[in-house]
């Protein structure tokens, strides 16, 4: 009886929704979908594969054929050459150093600030928070030039300070906002209970909130890491000395247009070694932010 009024009834009566028809229709759609997905995946992965393939070629192969992805025989010495190169080694170490320091300083300070904006009730919080959100509108160009002047006056040009120190001041309102939004979802009763037990806000921060905020902290760590590891502009502006160069500058300068033929295999080998940490971090953490957003949807 009930089926009479259901929407498909009319179509079914015409035989358009017979099980066989629907089955084959779904199969065709499935095949088309997978074709598109695989085609897209090839498009997105290809530059990476091309990078790896080229890094294993000889310079003759690089100059010759451009349609073969993999070399006839992998040239591992392209990598050996890099690993024996002290400038490469130094740039890598500089990058690791800068990124670790920035991560340490930024994550700590950001979590303090986000904690204060989400878990503590204080007069003036709304005003200060609104002020912070309004800085999101201000593009970085507004402060880039005078910051340079300031660091110049401090004699910090050609040191790591201009890149690492600002992070300690909870750099990046977007990160604070992200973490705050997460901390707001933690039940109020937890810190109230801790408060009754006589804990001060610092103890609540460390023992209650931080352990529960791990997924959000992981997410902002990844964003920060990727952003810092890739960062080209700041090192270009402030480092200005080969001994201090980080990996992005090293890789960018590997391509010397004066040389002919261009040694793309060396450039690509350095690129592969540069990309590996980012890829590893991405592979291990992507489920937090991709699945987090795409399966539940984002409301508010």
């Amino acid at each position, binding site marked *: 009886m009930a089926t009479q009024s259901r929407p498909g009834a009319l179509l079914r009566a015409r035989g358009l929704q017979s099980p066989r028809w629907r089955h084959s229709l779904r199969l065709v759609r499935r095949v088309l979908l997978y074709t598109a997905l695989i085609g897209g995946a090839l498009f997105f992965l290809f530059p990476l594969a091309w990078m790896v393939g080229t890094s294993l070629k000889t310079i003759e192969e690089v100059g010759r054929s451009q349609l073969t992805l993999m070399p006839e025989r992998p040239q591992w010495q392209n990598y050996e050459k890099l690993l024996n190169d002290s400038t490469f080694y130094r740039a890598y170490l500089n990058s690791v150093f800068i990124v670790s320091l920035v991560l340490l300083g930024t994550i700590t300070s950001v979590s303090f600030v986000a904690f*204060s904006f989400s878990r503590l009730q*204080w007069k003036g*919080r709304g005003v200060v928070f609104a002020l912070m959100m309004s800085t999101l509108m201000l593009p970085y160009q507004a402060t880039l030039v005078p910051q340079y002047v300031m660091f*110049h006056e401090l004699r910090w040009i050609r040191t790591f300070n201009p890149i690492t120190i600002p992070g300690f001041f909870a750099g990046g309102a977007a990160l604070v906002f992200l973490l705050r939004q997460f901390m707001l979802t933690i039940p109020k009763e937890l810190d109230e209970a801790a408060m009754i037990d006589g804990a001060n806000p610092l103890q609540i921060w460390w023992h209650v909130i931080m352990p529960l905020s791990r997924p959000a902290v992981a997410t902002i760590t990844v964003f920060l890491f990727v*952003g810092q590891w890739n960062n*080209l502009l700041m090192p270009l502006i402030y480092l200005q000395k080969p001994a201090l160069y980080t990996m992005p500058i090293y890789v960018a300068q590997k391509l010397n247009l004066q040389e002919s033929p261009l040694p793309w295999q060396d450039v690509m080998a350095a690129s592969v070694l540069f990309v590996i940490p980012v890829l590893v971090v991405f592979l291990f953490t992507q489920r937090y932010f991709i699945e987090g957003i795409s399966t539940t949807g984002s409301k508010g």
Partner: protein
Amino acid sequence: MASEMRLHNLKWALLTVIFIIVSSVALGLLARLIARLRGLSETEQRKIFWGFTLAGPWIVGFFIFVLGPALASLYYSFTDYELGQKMEWVGLDNYRKMLLVYGRQGRQFNKAMLNSFYYALIGVPLQILAALIMALLLNHEVRGIRFFRMVFYMPVILAGGPAILLAWRYMLTTNGGFVNEAMRKIAGMFFIFDYLYRGFIYGMEAFNGFYAGIAQGDPIGPLKYTAPALLGALILWLLARGEWSEGKRLLAWRAAQIVGLAMFFRLASKGLMAQPVNPAWLYAAGIAALGGIAWLGWLRHPRLRLTQGALLAATIALGIAVLARRDFALGDAETQRYLLPLALTALALIGAWIGPWTARTYRLLALFGALLSILLLVRLAPGQLDGGRLEVLMRYLTFGSTLDRTDDLDYLNKVYPVQTMSSLWFYGLAIAAWLGVAGLGEAHPMARRRLAWGGAALFALFALGSFLDGRAYFQAFERLAQASGKPNYHFSLFRQAIAQFPSSDRVPLWMNSELWSKPALILITMWSSGTGMLIFLAALKNVPRELYEAAEVDGANVWQRFVKITLPMISPAMFYNIVIGMIAALQTFETIYILQTPLTLDSLQSAAYLLYARTFSELHIGEGAAMSWILVVIILTLTVLQFRFSRSWVHYEA
């Protein structure tokens, strides 16, 4: 060396931490003291202390790294500061250099802005389309979809760094690069593919050549007339069709507002640059202002009086500015030319201001509007200036009849001097027409239709005429260039591109030509549009299934469901992506740094890249600061405008 530096850095990091702790606690104590003085309870004081102390790092950082520098850069922008040299106050000079198209700085800045405009106009829509298609593909719960989501997103994390950009640069090598080789291989498989490939090259080169021609600071280009005429025709056509609805009322009003604002900024910037202003502008602005006031009055808008007062004040201020000129003389024809439209506008506004708002007010406004229009036409008539104006106007209406006279050099010089006719009066006319049609739409539906169709036809005629005249433009430039011995005229690239259909051995030149450098950049941004994809994906998940089921019952097909349900439901995400994409277009840096060659830097560089080059390679702090503030104003305006106008088309769930 580097290890010493690291130690040095660690030392400073430690000092910074101590500084932050001390200053944060000091901030907390200060806040607590103030709280105590204001008589708050002990627990409130404690809360305030902890709140400010823990938020302290950001608050202290805000003063040191945001507020202080922002104010300093505002100050620098008015000086000629270069590192290590004494700075001197130069007033608006830096801004003037940047905004005027003459001089090296101005030309470069103009070029960079036009490049960014290209990215925003062509790149952002393509990027959003790519993101939307990706999201629609990934919005299926099938086996392995998590893997595909990961792969589709992955380019985002790589594209920020130099490595993958170098790989792209290698793949896009003109001679034997992978992309070109693969395309050639595919084109060679089947003759239809070959034609498509050659058509692609032809289309790209023609379009980018045309854009390059405009972007090279061409005196006018036919676009200056064609664009406003087309815009007027398009919106009038939309207003003429079908029933009169709320959406159309809003469309007329919004279009008039946007164009009016653009007119105002152009006028203001001309004033700032102390450039002579064509009086036609003042007539057009007056007509537009009267139309706007009438429309607001019709709507019984609560801010009618306020707007009216502001317009009146602006008109009177302009009049005083004209009178205050050093060489002022009332008998001077030049002065009268400026004062007449201002006085007429002011009179009409005052009339509407004192009396009660009745039918007579409308008649008054219409009368003065008509008077201004007639005077404007008379001004364009021969005898007023050089006799060229009416002739030009007539040519727009007669489909560019100059085509057969392009060999007469004297004639060309006379007809095509810079600013023969202000394109502004097209804008003023368009605004007045939109608002008039809107007003009629409220009162007389039939008259609304007739007027709108007639207006649309007239504007279409203008547009067509000016476009055909554009062909005369190209010829004119060619002749002028030949005659003056300078064959390098601005549309040379365009003419070369359209001269012949590409032969089968032509390839895309990518980084070896300014016709291909921007498309290469856009290709890479499309490759890495995963962020937009994630935002669309989240929005798609939030679309209620019931809506699709209900639509299916009603017999809607896939496309109808997409247009009527999916698109409106994800419009907030679309809106967000557009804002972010346009801002990113202005700020592109890494991609340009890695991809540029000396040949294509000019055609690639964005405003942010130019800022970097001027400030940190040439160390012109003052100019850099001025440029950064222009950028800030543009970005803030974009954001605010988009938020404001999004209300009319973005659907937010209640």
